[in-house]
């Protein structure tokens, strides 16, 4: 694998290991729909731009996963990336960047 997303992804994986780990299936990242990839991309860019750490994001993500019981019919990846959007909004709100 060439440079680029690989190291970034490895960094994200390491930071989110455990209950907040990226959805994978037999080691493969699961994106069922393009919005889930967009959500991941937004997270990567927002953290880069704001200087927030993955540890900080992980705290919001863990809280969002706890607070958001999966809706009936939601797949694991859908539920995860829905919580991911919650976490991103919470992080931006905490930093006063979003209302």
């Amino acid at each position, binding site marked *: 694998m060439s440079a680029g997303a690989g190291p970034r992804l490895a960094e994200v994986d390491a930071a989110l290991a455990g209950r907040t780990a990226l959805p994978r*299936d037999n080691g493969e990242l699961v994106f069922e729909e393009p919005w889930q990839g967009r959500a991941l991309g*937004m997270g990567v860019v927002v953290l880069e*731009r704001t200087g927030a750490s993955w540890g900080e994001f992980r705290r919001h993500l863990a809280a969002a996963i706890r607070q958001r019981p999966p809706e009936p019919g939601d797949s694991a990846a859908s539920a995860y990336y829905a919580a991911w*959007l919650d976490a991103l909004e919470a992080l931006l709100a905490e930093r006063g960047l979003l209302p």
Partner: protein
Amino acid sequence: MTEHRHDHHPRPDSRLALRARALEALLAEKGLVAADAIDAVVELYERDVGPQNGAKVVARAWTDPGFRERLLEDGTKAIAELGFGGAEADNLVAVANTPTVHNVVVCTLCSCYPWPVLGLPPTWYKSPPYRARMVAEPRAVLREFGLELPDEVEIRVWDSSAEVRYLVVPMRPAGTDGLTEEVLSALVTRDCMIGTAVPQAGSP
């Protein structure tokens, strides 16, 4: 088929898709994140682990008989020569099409896929109808993909698992003599390496 713990049924999810789009628009409006910055990240995933890695492997196999031999003998070791690999390709088996054998890959249990060489699996690959029918009636399914195979061609269906991933090495199309490896790799689409299509000399 036994129930698998992962649910991959494609389903409309416009509610969440709209929400993601709204957040992205808000980020852009606040000047926090430009859409093209997100595009760049998403494209990195696609480019770095997209089907073009597999296409390079196939093009190399077409132009270098020694590599082809090594690839068919030990896929994992051979793709490492090109710098490809990873946990999802720990046991990659390359299967070559011939004038009498056509190979096609499925994962009947879930969606095992040689991610490091083919990128993200297409939605249909994960769909229960494809998974079930490709085993039961491969010729009919391939016909629906637009691939009509002569009756005398044997179809071999390879069922992926967490342990073994398969890569189809299609036949080099006629009329491509003298083309460079780079040009050839552009003829090798993702579907060619799953086995639901064959490369066309004039494509893409």
